[in-house]
C-alpha cells in the first residue's frame, strides 16, 4: 500500500479502534467550552448539533473489541447485543466525552434505552427523538418542526449560545457536502468494487461518526483519489451483492471480510444511514430549518424503522439491486433485531417478485466465528454466478 493511503487508512483504523472517544476529547480540548452530543442509530439531525458549535457523535456500540462486564446484567438473553455494549461503554466511562445523548425512534430497544439512560445518568442531557411517521408537511411536518425547534432550544442552552440562521445554513451545507462525498464513494465502489475493500471502506466511512463533517469529507475525498492508485487492486470476477439489515448493530469487520473472501463484492449496503440521510438534496431554504424538515419527509422509507405508506416495502432494495447491477442480496441482520427481522419477509417477497436471488444469516456485533457464514456466502456467491451464466 502506498504511504499516503496507508496513512489515511491507519488514521481511520485508529478512529475505529478508539472506543474511549479520544478523538472527540481532543476536538473538545482544542477550544474552551466545546461540547459533543452523541446519538444512537439510525439517524439524528446532526446539522442542528453542529450548528450549535457542538460535535455530533454517532454511537454504534462496542463491536467485538469490548469486553462486556456490566452490560449483560442489564439485558435479558433475548435482546440484541447492541444495548449491552452501549451501556458497557457508558458505564465504563468511555462515553464521558459526550455532553448529551439522543435516542432516535427506531425500535423498542433504543426507545427504552432512552429511559434507562435517564435513570443511569440523571445529570446528562438525554432526549428521545420521535421521528415522524406521517409525511404530510402540514401534519407530520408540523410535529417534526416542533420537535426540532425544541431540540434546538435544548442545544442552545447546552452550548450557551443561540443557533443563528447562518450557523444552520453553514451546517446544512457542510453535511450536504459530506453526504455528497459519501455518496460518491458508494457509487465508485459500485462501479469498481475491487478498488475499495469492504473493511477499508467501512472504517473510512465510520470515521464520519466522530469527525467534524468537513474533516470527514476531506478524508473520504482523499480516499476516493488514493484507493484506485493501488496496483494490486485489479479487476476481479466476484458476485455483486447488496447487503441489507446492518443499519444499527454493526457487523464485525471480520464478517465483511468474510463475505469478500467468500467471493462477494458488496456493492451497496444499509450501513451508516446517519451519514447518508436524507438521501435527497437538502435545499438551503429561508428559514433553513424548512429545508431539513422537507427533505426528511420526502426522502421515503429507506429503513425498516420508517413507515412506508404506499406499502411498497422492499422497493428500495430492488431498486438498489438494479441500480448497482447486483446479482443477489444477503440479509445480514443482528440476532433479535426486531426491525430488521420483521422486515425481512417483506424484502424477500419483493426480491422474489423480481427474481433476485437472496440468502440470509444473523450475526452479533461480537461474533468471532465466521466459518459457517463463509461457507453459506460462498455457496451463495457460486450459485448466483452459475445462475448468471445459465
Amino acid at each position: 500500500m502506498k504511504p499516503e493511503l496507508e496513512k489515511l487508512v491507519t488514521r481511520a483504523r485508529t478512529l475505529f479502534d478508539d472506543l474511549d472517544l479520544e478523538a472527540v476529547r481532543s476536538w473538545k480540548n482544542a477550544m474552551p467550552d466545546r461540547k459533543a452530543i452523541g446519538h444512537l442509530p439510525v439517524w439524528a439531525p446532526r446539522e442542528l448539533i453542529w450548528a450549535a458549535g457542538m460535535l455530533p457523535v454517532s454511537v454504534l456500540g462496542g463491536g467485538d473489541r469490548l469486553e462486556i462486564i456490566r452490560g449483560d446484567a442489564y439485558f435479558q438473553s433475548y435482546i440484541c447485543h447492541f444495548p449491552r455494549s452501549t451501556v458497557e461503554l457508558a458505564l465504563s466511562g468511555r462515553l464521558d466525552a459526550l455532553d448529551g445523548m439522543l435516542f432516535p425512534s427506531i425500535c423498542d430497544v433504543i426507545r427504552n434505552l432512552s429511559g434507562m439512560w435517564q435513570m443511569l445518568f440523571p445529570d446528562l442531557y438525554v432526549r428521545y427523538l420521535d421521528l415522524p411517521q406521517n409525511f404530510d408537511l402540514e401534519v407530520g411536518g408540523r410535529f417534526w418542526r416542533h420537535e426540532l425547534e425544541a431540540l434546538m432550544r435544548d442545544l442552545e442552552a447546552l452550548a450557551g449560545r443561540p443557533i443563528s440562521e447562518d450557523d444552520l445554513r453553514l451546517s446544512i451545507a457542510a453535511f450536504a457536502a459530506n453526504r455528497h462525498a459519501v455518496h460518491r464513494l458508494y457509487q465508485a465502489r459500485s462501479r469498481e468494487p475491487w478498488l475499495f475493500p469492504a473493511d477499508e471502506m467501512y472504517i473510512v466511512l465510520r470515521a464520519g461518526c466522530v469527525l467534524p463533517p468537513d474533516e470527514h469529507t476531506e478524508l473520504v475525498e482523499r480516499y476516493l483519489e488514493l484507493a484506485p492508485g493501488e496496483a494490486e487492486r485489479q479487476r476481479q470476477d466476484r458476485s455483486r451483492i447488496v447487503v441489507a439489515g446492518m443499519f444499527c448493530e454493526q457487523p464485525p469487520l471480520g464478517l465483511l471480510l468474510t463475505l469478500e473472501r467468500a467471493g462477494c463484492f458488496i456493492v451497496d449496503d444499509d450501513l451508516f444511514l446517519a451519514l447518508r440521510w436524507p438521501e435527497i438534496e437538502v435545499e438551503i431554504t429561508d428559514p433553513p430549518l424548512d429545508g431539513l424538515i422537507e427533505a426528511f419527509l420526502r426522502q421515503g422509507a429507506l429503513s425498516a424503522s420508517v413507515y412506508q405508506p404506499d406499502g411498497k416495502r422492499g422497493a428500495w432494495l430492488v431498486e438498489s439491486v438494479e441500480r448497482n447491477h447486483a446479482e443477489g442480496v444477503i440479509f445480514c441482520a443482528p440476532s433479535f433485531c426486531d426491525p430488521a427481522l420483521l422486515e425481512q419477509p417483506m424484502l424477500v417477497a419483493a426480491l422474489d417478485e423480481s427474481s433476485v436471488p437472496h440468502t440470509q444469516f444473523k450475526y452479533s456485533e461480537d461474533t468471532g466465528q465466521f466459518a459457517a457464514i463463509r461457507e453459506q456466502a460462498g455457496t451463495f456467491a457460486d450459485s448466483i454466478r452459475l445462475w448468471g451464466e445459465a
Partner: protein
Amino acid sequence: MPDVAPSQKEQSMLLQKEMISGHYDALARAKDEGKKVVYTFVPGNLTELMRSFDILPNLPEINALQSGMRKLSGGYISEAEKHGHSEDVCTYVKCDIGMLKKGNIGPTGVKLPEPDLLLLSYTGCFTFMKWFELLRQEYDCPVAMLHIPYQGDGKVHDHYRGYVIEQLETEVIPKLEAVTGRAFDQDRLRASLALSAAAEDDLVYVLESARHRPSPIDAYFGGVYYIGPIFSAFRGTEEGAAYYRALRREIDQRVAAGQGPVTPEGELETERFRLVIEGPPNWTSFREFWKMFYDEGAVVVASTYTKVGGLYDRGFRHDPDNPLATLADYCMGCYTNLSLPARVDLVEQYVRDYAADGFLINSVKSCNSFSVGQLLMLRQLEDRTGLPGGFIESDLVDPRYFSAANIKNRIESYLQMIEQKRTAGPAA
C-alpha cells in the same frame, strides 16, 4: 380478555364469555350483513370511533392470546416460521400470520373476515407497524396509520396532542369514511365516549378493590378477564357498560362478604402474599402459571399489564366534550407508551398504594416494548421500596418458552424470601 374462564365462574365471567363469542360470531357474519371490519391493536385502539361508523373491530393480539390459551399458537408459530419469519421476533405476530396461513379460522372455530381497513395505531410498540405492513401484503386493503408520539420525557406535550388530532382528521377519519361510505358523526362518537367513561369508572372501582384485605380480586390473573371487554371491542358500547356495572356489583358483594379472589379451583381463602406484577402473562400455560401463585396463597393486587389498553386508574377518562382530543390523550397514555422512569414510578406507587409484600417481573421474550429495561426497573424498585423483587422469564404464546419447573421454582423461592423477611421483622 381470555374467555377460557376459571371453572368456578363469576356471573360476570359468563357474561363476558357470551359477549366475546358473540363478537366472533358477528365478525363471521359481517360480510353477509354488509358490515365493515377493521383490524386494529389493543393499545391505542379507537373503538368508539370505529363503532360510530358501525364498524366491527378485530384485534389480532386478542386472537393470538386466545389461540395461546387454546394450545393452537405453537402450530401457528411454526407455520409462520416455515414461511420465513424469524424465531427471534414477537410471537403474537407469528401466531397471527400462522393462523392466517392456515385459513384464518379464529380462536372460536369460526372463520375471520378479511379486513376492509388496517387501522395501525402505533402506540407503545414498533412491532405494530411491521405487523400491519406484513398483513398489508396479505390483504388488498388500505391502511390508516396513526403515529402516537412516545412520552420520552414522561410528558404529553401540546403539540403531540395536536399531531394526533390532525392525523385523526386527515388520515383516520377520511379512511373510515371512505371504507364505510358514511360521514363522520360526532354526536354518535360523543355518546359512545360517555359510555366508555362510565365503564372506566366501574373498572377502576374494581381494580382498586384490591386495596382491601383480603383482596376480593386477583388483579393480574383475574384482572385479564376484567379488562377483556374494555380493551377489546366493547369500550363505548351499552353491552360493555352493562358488563362493568355487573362486575362492580359482584365485587361489592365479595368485599362485603370479606371474600378473596375466585381462582379456577374456587375461592382463595387465605391471602398470604400480596404482589404487584409487571409484564404480560404467559397464555399457553395460563392456568398452570396462575396455580403457582394461588397454591401459595399469593394474590396479585396490582399489575401493569392490565394498563396496556389504558391507564384509567391514574385518572384518565374518555371525555365526550372533547372527542378527538380525548382519543389522542387515551392513545398517548397507554402503559407501554410511558417512559421507563414513569413505569418505575407507577410500579412503586402500586407497591405502596396496595400495601404489597413484593413485586415480580414476568419478562416475556416476545416483547421488547415491555422487556427492555426491566432488569434496571427491578433494581430501582428494590432500592426505592426496600422490598425484594422477583424476576421470571417466559413468553406470551410460544409454548417453547414456558419452562414450568423453572418458573415454579423461582416463584416459590421468591415467596419464601418474602416470608423470611417478614418473620425476621423490619430490621432484616
